[in-house]
């Protein structure tokens, strides 16, 4: 069922210890910072987090990791110049890492949302990231079997929602939003604007509302990545 809530705290209040949580965003674009902050405040722990990266700087996902809430990261690129909180936890053996090539990460998430039990892909064949996985030669090409990644909850950011939970995104902030919305049992979306039902052109809807469970409005400018207000050094 679709609900509209008044606060990010209310939006994440159902997240429990041990959940697998998908968090949208690539770099700062599309990161639902306010929802992540609320997740930090709600205290849920032993989380498995699915994101392309493993947190940057002293905000968002990096703080969840710093506070020891994340037991496992599933991501493609955990090592960045400012990913010191992950680095510390990883080197201390306090966080598990499942490293996945970026396209396999995306397709495994997509497969979960689409009810696919797995797929063969040439990406990673013959590399250490395919060790222990089933392989086949298909059309003359070595391929690796990859399984879907399901989640209890997805936290994503979109530009607008209408009254049916239909979503549109903005530029490269779309990234993981649509596939994570489909892959999670419960999808929580922060949007800059809520428009009346009928206020989005059906031809332009990117994520149909059937994938969306909870919507909260976080006005652009209130957040750290709102449109053109963000100045990147």
């Amino acid at each position, binding site marked *: 069922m679709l609900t509209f809530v008044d606060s990010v705290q209310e939006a994440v209040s159902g997240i429990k210890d041990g959940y697998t949580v998908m968090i949208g965003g*690539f*770099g*700062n*674009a*599309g990161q639902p910072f306010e929802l992540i902050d609320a997740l930090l405040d709600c205290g849920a722990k032993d989380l498995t987090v699915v994101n*392309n990266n493993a947190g940057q700087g002293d905000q968002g996902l990096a703080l969840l990791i710093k506070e020891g809430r994340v037991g496992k990261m599933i991501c*493609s*690129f*955990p*090592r*960045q110049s400012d990913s010191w909180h*992950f*680095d510390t936890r*990883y*080197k201390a053996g306090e966080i598990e*890492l499942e*490293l*996945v*090539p*970026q*396209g*396999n*990460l*995306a*397709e495994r*998430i*997509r497969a979960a949302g689409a009810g696919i039990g797995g797929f063969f*892909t*040439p*990406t*990673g*064949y*013959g*590399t*250490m*990231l395919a060790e222990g996985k089933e392989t086949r030669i298909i059309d003359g090409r*070595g391929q690796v079997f990859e399984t879907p990644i399901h989640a209890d909850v997805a936290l994503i950011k979109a530009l607008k929602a209408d009254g049916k939970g239909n979503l549109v*995104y*903005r*530029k*490269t*902030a*779309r*990234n*993981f*939003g*649509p*596939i994570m919305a489909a892959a999670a049992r419960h999808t929580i979306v922060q949007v800059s604007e809520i428009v009346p039902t009928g206020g989005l052109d059906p031809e332009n809807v*990117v994520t149909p509302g059937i994938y969306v469970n909870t919507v909260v409005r976080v006005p652009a400018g209130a957040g750290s*990545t*709102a*449109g*053109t*207000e*963000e*100045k*990147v050094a």
Partner: protein
Amino acid sequence: MSTATSIQTSATPLGRDDLARLVAKDIAPGSFVNLGIGQPTLVSNYLTDEQNITLHTENGMLGMGPAAEGDQIDGDLINAGKIPVTELPGASYFHHADSFAIMRGGHLDICVLGAFQVSATGDLANWHTGAPGAIPAVGGAMDLATGAKDVFVMMTLLTREGASKIVESCTYPLTGIGCVTRVYTDKGVFLTGPDGVAVRETFGCTLEELQELVPVQLKAAPAA
């Protein structure tokens, strides 16, 4: 002059910008191209309007324009290196699974990547040094290496210690097998494939001198 030395096209090794200019010139008009992070990004400086190249960035865009400056900077519009960029007329946005389907599905004509090592048969190592304690991070490297119709590598031929990065077989962890088709280096352009390594042209050395540096049997490529 013997035919073996006639493939030298520059009296000196090529600098990074000259190499980028050469790669840009070799990209066929109308191509869809992904430029990797680092040195390959320089190639975009030398693509001409007449070439009509469409740039793909794997975070979810075709029709990427130059880096954004000043008021153009928009936190929602970044490239795979997380650098603010611009959009060109005719640009399109799509989600991550579609973006990698573009890659994996063989729709990109060329991707240009950096490398630690390339083997004689085109194996690529460019994501992980394998050093103990290093945090592994792969990003889209393996997807790019296996997806594009042609994979070009741009790198210096030698490491700082003077070892050839073109090797019989890679000692660093692999990114992809038999995927590299062409290697652009400061000392020459190498064509790699199942039949071994052919040298298209050399810079600042003869083929014989190049052979002294590279522990893989080299031959001159047939004239194009």
